[in-house]
């Protein structure tokens, strides 16, 4: 029987929620790594039993955990993330240059074809790769050569939080970094260039159209059309139809175009989802109403999805990695909140149910569709 496995990373551990294809009754397993911050868990598309988790605390640093049995048991693997060569410097809050310092792993993006190959996005911003199942990690250092000296940490840290792998072109990789921007490689990570033309950050940057410095919050693609990218920027929801060469705004009638996650429907490449947040100063939904907005036109025209979501006195946030979709015939959409709720829709967002009420603040949500 097919079903789904929802991987939830929280401030105090990981939770694994499983259901059959009806997605009504849920089995809860966890907390795994109780008391640790789990920034991200993600399963290998090539082997769903292989799952990687980023585990950290301020006390004991960074660990990477690996499961070979669908999250039942875990083994710590390599946790040495050494920048390539002399790490160099980036811009600091006071305008001076500051040395690159490893802080944590924000996300783990397994290869689409090889369970032992995984990309890691880290803070201070860099991309690493393992090809031995997480035992050793090597930086792809050319990314930091893409004007890295001009990158500066945002409020959440100078984090590389998005890695997208092109299913039709194994050499093409996209990354996004808070307060640095979006970048593309067409040669497997050997070289990188900013992919930001068309982004405008009028209130955040002295040159609103500079090549680097834009605070990109997340990027999503549909695997059938990897040249089309959707971006939730600090402010503005954006779209590119040429693999990030050019961007245009698609915020349309959203009540706010500030937000963190963005997702694409599994079967409708022009159907996208965002969760509008009031502003950069007030990280909660406008009017205290938790609404997912869906566009079925690839942007510009948006509808509020509210059935089953709190429509009064709701002041949670939804973080950038905390929304995902499954690939069952009726596409499921999932997101977690800083208030510890996990919401699921088994019908593309038309109706929602709360599948977890009282978790620690949710940092990430990923979904595996089990066939």
């Amino acid at each position: 029987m097919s079903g789904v496995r929802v991987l939830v990373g929280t401030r105090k551990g990981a939770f694994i929620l499983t259901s059959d294809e009806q997605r009504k009754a849920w089995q809860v397993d966890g907390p795994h790594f109780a008391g640790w911050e789990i920034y991200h868990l993600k399963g290998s598309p090539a082997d769903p039993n292989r799952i990687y988790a980023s585990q950290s605390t301020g006390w004991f640093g960074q660990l990477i955990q690996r499961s070979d049995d669908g999250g039942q048991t875990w083994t710590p693997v390599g946790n040495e993330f050494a920048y390539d060569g002399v790490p160099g410097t980036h811009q600091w809050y006071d305008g001076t240059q500051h040395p690159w310092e490893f802080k944590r792993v924000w996300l783990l993006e397994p290869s689409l074809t090889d369970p032992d190959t995984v990309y890691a996005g880290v803070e201070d911003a860099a991309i690493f790769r393992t090809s031995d199942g997480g035992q050793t990690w090597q930086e792809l250092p050319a990314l930091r050569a893409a004007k890295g000296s001009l990158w500066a940490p945002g409020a959440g840290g100078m984090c590389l939080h998005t890695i997208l792998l092109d299913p039709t072109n194994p050499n093409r990789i996209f990354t996004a970094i808070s307060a640095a921007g979006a970048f593309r490689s067409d040669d497997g990570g050997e070289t990188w260039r900013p992919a930001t033309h068309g982004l405008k950050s009028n209130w955040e940057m002295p040159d609103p159209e500079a090549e680097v410095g834009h605070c990109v919050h997340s990027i999503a693609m549909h695997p059938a059309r990897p040249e089309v990218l959707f971006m939730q920027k600090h402010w503005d929801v954006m779209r590119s139809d040429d693999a990030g060469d050019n961007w245009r705004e698609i915020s349309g009638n959203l009540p706010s175009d500030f937000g963190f996650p963005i997702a694409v429907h599994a079967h409708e490449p022009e159907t996208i989802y965002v969760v509008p947040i009031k502003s950069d100063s007030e990280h909660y939904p406008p009017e205290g109403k938790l609404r997912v907005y869906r566009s079925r036109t690839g942007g510009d025209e948006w509808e509020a999805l509210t059935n089953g979501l709190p429509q009064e006195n709701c002041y949670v946030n939804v973080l950038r990695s905390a929304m995902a979709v499954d690939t069952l015939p009726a596409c499921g959409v999932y997101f977690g909140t800083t208030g510890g709720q996990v919401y699921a829709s088994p019908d593309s967002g038309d109706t929602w149910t709360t599948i977890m009420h009282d978790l620690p603040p949710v940092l990430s949500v990923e979904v595996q569709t089990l066939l």
Partner: protein
Amino acid sequence: MIRVLIPHHLRTLANTGKEVEVPVEGAVTLRTVIDALEARYPMLRGTIRDRATQERRPLIRFFACGQDFSHTSLDTPLPDAVASGAESLMVVGAMAGG
């Protein structure tokens, strides 16, 4: 054998009890004890000392015989009572928070 008390999260990680014993050849210092601890329990690498600098992580403390060794050189000899196994070296997660 050197006795080392380790904090809750590291016990869970290394699948140990509250106290572990590790062999140390030669001088008994923070560095040699942690080297031995990491050799016996490789999953603890990076959790007590920073991976890059090999210095104490900021929120780790080292106590022994009623004294705080957190701010001394890692190469400072530990008290004879630790070296003889009469007392434990305590690896502690610092108080932090509200």
